[in-house]
């Protein structure tokens, strides 16, 4: 009983999935909501840095799914949340990979999305008390 009360006190009230959704939409936001400023800043810098570097290397942003690999790439890209949506809206990213570094850039963008999903799940685990 006491343990449950401590757990609730540590995790706070409110919508339990808010850090997960916020963390997905904006890198690091889930941790910021939980007042984990240092972790959030490092996660945001890592995901944002990787995404921006991917774009700088003329990486491709997946827009549609024509085959299985495209579907996987699109799922990875969607992990970036608003970064992906804004970049698509602004027309950033290459439609076709034309230079060697563009292939690396495409992977950077996909992996940034996957890392952002891991970070968002971590924020959810912190929120539920599964992780300290």
């Amino acid at each position, binding site marked *: 009983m006491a343990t449950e009360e401590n757990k609730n006190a540590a995790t706070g009230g409110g919508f339990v999935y808010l850090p997960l959704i916020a963390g997905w939409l904006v890198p690091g936001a889930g941790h910021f909501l939980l007042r984990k400023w240092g972790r959030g800043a490092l*996660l945001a810098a*890592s*995901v944002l*840095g*990787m995404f921006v570097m991917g774009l700088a290397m003329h990486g491709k942003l997946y827009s549609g799914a024509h085959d299985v690999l495209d579907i996987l790439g699109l799922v990875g890209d969607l992990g970036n949340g608003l970064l992906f949506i804004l970049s698509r809206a602004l027309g950033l990213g290459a439609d076709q990979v034309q230079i060697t570094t563009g292939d690396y850039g495409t992977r*950077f963008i996909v*992996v*940034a999305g996957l*890392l952002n999903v891991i*970070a968002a799940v971590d924020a959810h685990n912190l929120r539920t008390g599964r992780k300290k």
Partner: protein
Amino acid sequence: MTHFAAVVLFALFASIVFGITQRETPQRMIRYGVYCFLLFVGSAIALSWIMYLIAR
């Protein structure tokens, strides 16, 4: 940007996220992050040498 610089940056960013998300205390986060970084870069160098020797 060189290929090696891309590998190092990839390893750095991924290791930071792995370290923070996979461990609970700051000290263990740093140790795990450094461990992941060394594995990323080390395996890239090792695989590069293997491919170089195979291609010769």
